[in-house]
């Protein structure tokens, strides 16, 4: 099983098993998220999780935000498999990565920036 699929499964399971999503559920989700991304930069993983939370409230669509988070997870795990993201999503990824670059490893940064450039979101 691909490592990104395992994360996707766990995130989806979280959604399927919680009834009312409140602070405690989001805390649980954050723990699942960070546990799966323990090999990646914690600051970066946290930045993306914060963006997930703000997407949940901004659009009042947890499922859509979760789909986005699953794709972000695959990128951070360097296992991206063409998950759907918009141009704005890619620009935002560049911005978030830009602000965390000094704590990232060169290979991590190379991987993500290659995807950003491929998706025309360098500028």
């Amino acid at each position: 099983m691909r490592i990104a699929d395992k994360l996707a499964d766990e995130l989806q399971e979280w959604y399927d098993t919680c009834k009312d999503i409140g602070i405690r559920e989001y805390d649980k989700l954050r723990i699942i998220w960070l546990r799966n991304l323990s090999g990646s930069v914690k600051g970066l993983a946290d930045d993306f999780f914060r963006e997930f939370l703000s997407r949940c409230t901004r659009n009042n669509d947890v499922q859509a935000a979760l789909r986005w988070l699953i794709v972000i997870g695959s990128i951070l795990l360097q296992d991206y498999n063409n998950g759907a993201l918009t141009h704005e999503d890619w620009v935002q990824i560049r911005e978030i990565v830009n602000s965390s670059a000094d704590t990232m490893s060169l290979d991590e940064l190379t991987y993500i920036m290659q995807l950003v450039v491929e998706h025309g979101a360098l500028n």
Partner: protein
Amino acid sequence: MKTKDEFPAINDRKPDGIKPDGTPYRIMVVDDSMFVAKQITQILTSEGYNVVAQAADGLQAVEKYKELYPNIDLVTMDITMPNMDGLTALQKIIEFDKNAKVVMISALGKQDLVKQCLLAGAKNYIVKPLDRKKVLERILYVLNK
């Protein structure tokens, strides 16, 4: 019984530097150190790449890139150079051709500079001292993207 001709020869492997259409990839090597430039050129030509230009600083690199474009497939770019450094030259090349494939060549311990280059659109990086295998691996990876 098979004749000798039916067995593929060991050296039938297509060299890295040859495109699927049979022509070589065209590379520009940018480095202010003659020694390093020569080393990269040797590694590349031994795999069939065509080193179409060399430049000894960023200014020359940008000029030559514009002259050669679109008949250039990849640039290896040193970071520390006189006149114009590699990061600035990279930015100018990307400004001119947003699809430019530039691989940075960096001295050990220049992580922050390499990161700036990656954020500016460099496709990959190679750290000196150069390891033949790594040079070929990273360049091929970028070309195949």
